[in-house]
Each structure stands twice: as structure tokens, then as C-alpha cells.
């Protein structure tokens, strides 16, 4: 399955896959940011691969000068019983990435969570609002430069 997948991806998108790595039988591909939507669409719709479900989507902050953030997609092919992890690197200066919620409905709330926690903007998302924190909150709390105890006064308490 792994060889078939890589062969098909290289045929279809010769320059989309930047890094291939494998750890304990878990395959991880780093995908070029501009190609994530067509790659996901292909993986989902191709009848041999048929990655029909998204198991998780999350953000990560590596706090490095270039490509500070990552979005990680864990997708699963029920037909082949095969799991695949895709990663997209996102620079702090351009926080936009294409939304995959049109391909997998389940990505809708997961992308809202990544937006809430990291401020990553998913283009084409139908309803990109905060999912956990109050809508008037101005910060992104899982970023590494956010203080653990928060910013005083940023979350209002009721009057005593």
C-alpha cells in the first residue's frame, strides 16, 4: 500500500511531496502548502487509495524562525485499513492554508479548533469561528509565546 501510494502521488503531483518519513510503520508526508487541497482531494477520490475519513486534524507551534506552524492531518482509508499522516508547514507571515472541510466534513470543527488555538486561517472554511474560547477573545492560547496564566483581563469574570 505504501509503495502504491507514493507512486501514485509522484505520478500525479511530481513536486508536492517534500519529505517522506516512516516511524514504527507510520507513514508521514510533508506536503507543499499550495498543493494540500488537490493532494487531499486526490487521496479521497482515487478508488484505489480511497482515504475516506479524517481521524484528526491539529495545529502545532514549533517556535522556529521559518515555517513556525504546522497543520497535521491524520487520514484513514477504510478500504485498505491504512493510516497516513500529512503535514503542511505554515509561516508566521502567511497564516493561510486551504480548508479540507469540503473534502471531509469532519474537518470542519477540527479546523475551527486549530484556528482558535493557533490562529491558522483556513481558506474556504464555511464557518471559521472560535470553537472553545469566547468570540471576543483576542489571543491564540496554544502559541508558545502565550503566557501560561493568560493575559489579565482578557477573559472577563462576572461581577461579584
Amino acid at each position, binding site marked *: 500500500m505504501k509503495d502504491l501510494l507514493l507512486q501514485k502521488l509522484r505520478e500525479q503531483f511530481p513536486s508536492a511531496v517534500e519529505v517522506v518519513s516512516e516511524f514504527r510503520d507510520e507513514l508521514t508526508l510533508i506536503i507543499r502548502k499550495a498543493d494540500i487541497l488537490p493532494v487531499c482531494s486526490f487521496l479521497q477520490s482515487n478508488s484505489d487509495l480511497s482515504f475516506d475519513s479524517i481521524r484528526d486534524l491539529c495545529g502545532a507551534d514549533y517556535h522556529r524562525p521559518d515555517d513556525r506552524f504546522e497543520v497535521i492531518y491524520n487520514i484513514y482509508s477504510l478500504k485498505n485499513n491504512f493510516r497516513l499522516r500529512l503535514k503542511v508547514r505554515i509561516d508566521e507571515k502567511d497564516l493561510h492554508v486551504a480548508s479540507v472541510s469540503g473534502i471531509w466534513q469532519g474537518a470542519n470543527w477540527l479546523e475551527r479548533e486549530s484556528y482558535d488555538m493557533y490562529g491558522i486561517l483556513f481558506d474556504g472554511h464555511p464557518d471559521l469561528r472560535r470553537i472553545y474560547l469566547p468570540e471576543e477573545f483576542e489571543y491564540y492560547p496554544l502559541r508558545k509565546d502565550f503566557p501560561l496564566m493568560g493575559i489579565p483581563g482578557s*477573559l472577563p*469574570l*462576572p461581577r461579584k
Partner: protein
Amino acid sequence: MELERTNDSFLTTQLDQIIGWARKNSLWPMPMGISCCAIEMMAFAGPRFDVARFGSEAFRFSPRQSDLMIVAGTVTYKMSHVVRKIYDQMPDPKWVIAMGACTSSGGMYRSYSVVQGIDLFLPVDVYVSGCPPRPDNLLKALMEIQKKIARGEKPGQSDKVYIEESAEHA
């Protein structure tokens, strides 16, 4: 309660005292069960610990029918507005028990999202330590509230009571 017996089969007392006696033996709790402490609160209401012995078995899910709020669980900033709104809807006199470490102080959640103690936005009468507290300690907190009412104290004004953790088994 001070009672005085007259010769013709009547007992006399003061109105405040008899109302206080009635109130302290029928405290109806508002179960503000937000997280895992609520499981212990259910044990406190169930047959083993049996809060019915103290007249508080009628958990009311409407704040308008309850006079004791048991806040059992981690209160986030987002939830604090809900807790306060429910507290505001309860009729006076109303009492508050802060059950467990999270409710009393934020507990292990030293985090931007968790209120570091509900006394930042609510008047608390009794704090119960433990993570979660044993149901018998919550019973003790209820008895402390009853003592407060029997002494004629007002909610949220007199000295706070702190129930320490115990390892004893019921």
C-alpha cells in the same frame, strides 16, 4: 432552637428560630456538577451516604427552587458566567459550597482558561478540600451550613469554613 413549654400543651419560641430550624433541615441543593466532583456529589445523594438524613435529598435542577448551590468541578472563565447567572436566579437566603480543589482554588489547572477559585465571583460559605472530596466530607460541609443557619448567620458574610481532607472510610 430555644423552646419554652407552657402549661397548656403549647411550645413557644421566636419566629426567626423556628424558620431557621425549618430552613436548615430542608436545604435543597442546586447541583452545579461541572466535572468529576459531581460523581462524588451523586454518591453523597445516593443511599450509601444518604443526604436524606439531613433533609437535603431533593436536588432541584431549577435554581428557583433551591437554596444551596454545590459547585462541584472545574469552573472555566466561559462557564463562570453561567454559574453566576444560576446563582443570581436562586431565591435568598442562598448558600454556596465550593466542593473540591478546582472549585476552591483552580486546583491542578494553573491555566489561562480556569478561574483560580470561585470566590473571585461568588460568595462562598464552605470550602471542601480533596480531589475529589470524599462524600462524607461533603456531608460535613452541609452540616457546617446547617450550623451557620442555626446560629442565625447571613450567607456569604461570616467566617468561611474549610473542611480538611480525611482518609477515613465510611
